[in-house]
């Protein structure tokens, strides 16, 4: 058991998988000699050498295209797209190539690769370097999509992603890189498609992802202490596959659902889950489903404005307590 940052967990996870399987290779911009712009891949180049850990030109399409070509012919590439926002310049691979290959070829070819991205806001980087793009990837059939919130989940889910025979988009959160957590020694493997109940509760279910998880947890403590509202907090972790069983069971118990989403509102992951619950658990619901999201705006650079935009614990507390008190239950 050791304390590890989320940042160092990334490097450890990749190292774990590269050690296990010689076919795992890693490429991206400034990822090798420099250890990545977020310093999340420090040491990999030294450990695995220039054959397996490769710096690329600023050519995101070439990075993802090459990863795909290698994946479909036998390798297990991990590709970094530095800031998640840059997924937009290589979106063809995300939307049209990776996820359709197996289907279009009737199973003749597969695309076992992982795309890592530095996702999310909070670093005052402005509108083109701060987006939460989980829904850009969740909406595309044929991908798997995960977004860990803790160092141990980074390792376990990365291992599962690398070993998965499908294209997996792995959203790391930039504002979590410095966060520390306990991580067991030895190999860690987790399971895609599993949500985690981080705080059991009986009055309401709160779903959160990545940076929103610690905020939801903090809010739940305040809601319990100051408002007598006992929330169950679930870290969704995996958007595809989606652990609807855990979510539906929780809503069956609590009767109320809140989502805490960093994405701008429209078509966020919470919308999809809300629609599932409003269909399949409608009769379990004791009141409205409420989504707490970033407003549907680009993100501002200024610290005080960015802080206003992203959901935080006080806003979660305010919203949930108000909704729960106003409930016609």
């Amino acid at each position, binding site marked *: 058991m050791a304390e590890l940052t989320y940042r160092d967990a990334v490097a450890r996870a990749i190292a774990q998988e590269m050690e296990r399987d010689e076919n795992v*290779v890693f490429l991206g911009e400034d990822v090798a000699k420099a250890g990545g712009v977020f310093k999340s891949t420090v040491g990999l180049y030294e450990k695995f050498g220039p054959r397996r850990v490769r710096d690329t030109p600023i050519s995101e399409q*070439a990075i993802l*295209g*090459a990863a795909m070509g290698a994946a*479909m012919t036998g390798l297990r590439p991990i590709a970094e797209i530095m800031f998640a926002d840059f997924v937009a310049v290589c979106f063809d691979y995300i939307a049209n190539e990776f996820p359709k290959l*197996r289907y*279009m070829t009737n199973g003749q070819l597969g695309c076992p690769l992982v795309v890592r991205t530095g996702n999310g806001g909070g670093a005052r980087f402005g509108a083109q370097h701060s987006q939460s793009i989980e829904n850009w990837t969740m909406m595309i*059939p044929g991908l798997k999509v995960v977004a860990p919130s803790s160092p141990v989940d980074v390792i376990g889910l990365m291992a599962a992603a690398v070993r998965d025979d499908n294209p997996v988009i792995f959203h790391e959160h930039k504002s979590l890189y410095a966060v520390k957590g306990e991580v067991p020694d030895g190999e860690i493997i987790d399971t895609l498609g599993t949500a985690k109940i981080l705080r059991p509760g009986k009055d309401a279910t709160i779903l959160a992802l990545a940076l929103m998880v610690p905020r939801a947890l903090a809010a739940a403590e305040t809601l319990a202490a100051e408002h007598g509202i006992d929330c169950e907090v679930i870290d969704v972790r995996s958007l*595809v596959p989606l652990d609807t069983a855990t979510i539906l069971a929780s809503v069956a118990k609590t009767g109320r659902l809140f989502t805490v989403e960093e994405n701008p509102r429209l078509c966020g992951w919470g919308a999809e889950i809300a629609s599932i619950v409003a269909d399949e658990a409608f009769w379990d619901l004791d009141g409205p489903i409420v989504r707490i999201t970033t407003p549907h705006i680009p993100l501002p650079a200024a610290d005080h404005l960015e802080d206003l935009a992203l959901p935080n614990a006080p806003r979660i507390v305010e919203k949930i307590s108000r909704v729960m008190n106003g409930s016609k239950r």
Partner: protein
Amino acid sequence: MSGKHTGSRKAGLSNDDIGPETRLELYRLQVEIRDCEKRANDLFFQNLIKGTSHLSLGQEAIAAGVAMAMQPGDKSFCTYRGHAHTLARGVPMEQVLGELMLRDVGLMRGKGGSMHLTSVEHGVMGSYAIIGAHLPIACGSAWRAQYLGQKDVSVCFFGDGTTNIGAFHEALNFAAIWKLPVVFICENNLYMEYTPIGDVTAVEHPAADRASAYGLERIVVDGNDADVVYRTAQAAFVKARDGGGPSLIECMTYRHSGHSRADPAKYRPEGELEKWLERDPVKIYRERLREFGISEAEITAIDAESKRKVEAATELCKASPPAPAELLTTDVYADGGWSWRN
């Protein structure tokens, strides 16, 4: 048509580096592609081919010449205009026509359609319908070969219009700096869909005139002469296998039909098609065989066998049912299914 490797005519049988066996094979491939494509065209007008389809009529020499230079294990990355390249690697006609007809007998049982022909068994690693996307993908396949010390070459086919999209540029630079065993074949048929390539391109030869931007040699060849294509491709493959890195080959050619099934190609200047029909690759090659003393009987036998194959394949396809409905949701994920939730 300037540049390297242009001259092809040999004075006679002496000093023939290609030889009658290969020549007959090159002829057979071209004829079979020609006949199969013509049949595809007919089937479309009989409403037996739905959706779209993009023929290589007039461009057969490139598919044949490159495929003949390939070895088993080499990988082809094609476009929507990929029937020819798929057939050239030895994929049976009924699997190609069957996919065009969206029947169960098709290569992908109708799931992919004419634009996505794939036969991994024959080294056809997919046909891609988003312009430019497969150039980086071919780089990745070549990277795998380099990484694993495997000796296969990845070959990527695309058109003149494709040279103006960003992925072309990224792939060429990437292949060059990593010295990847990949060969890029640009089939310059003078048009993107309906727009002449010269109207939208800053250089005369959209691929070759850009080779130097990636430190590569400028290569433009007569794409209607299968011998020329064969020799040029062979040299590029040898270089790639020897660790010499990528090549970019621009083959000048012309499509006899419209861009896709529904295009009557009215945008062409008068006389252009006729001029190119004189340089019809099948016609050229038939003359070539005669020049090299191949008997008329041998030629006719190939022609007849090709027609027979097309007929047989057509019948087989017509008799084939559509795929079962269950196929709709298979092979989205590696577990064979489509489940995105529990």
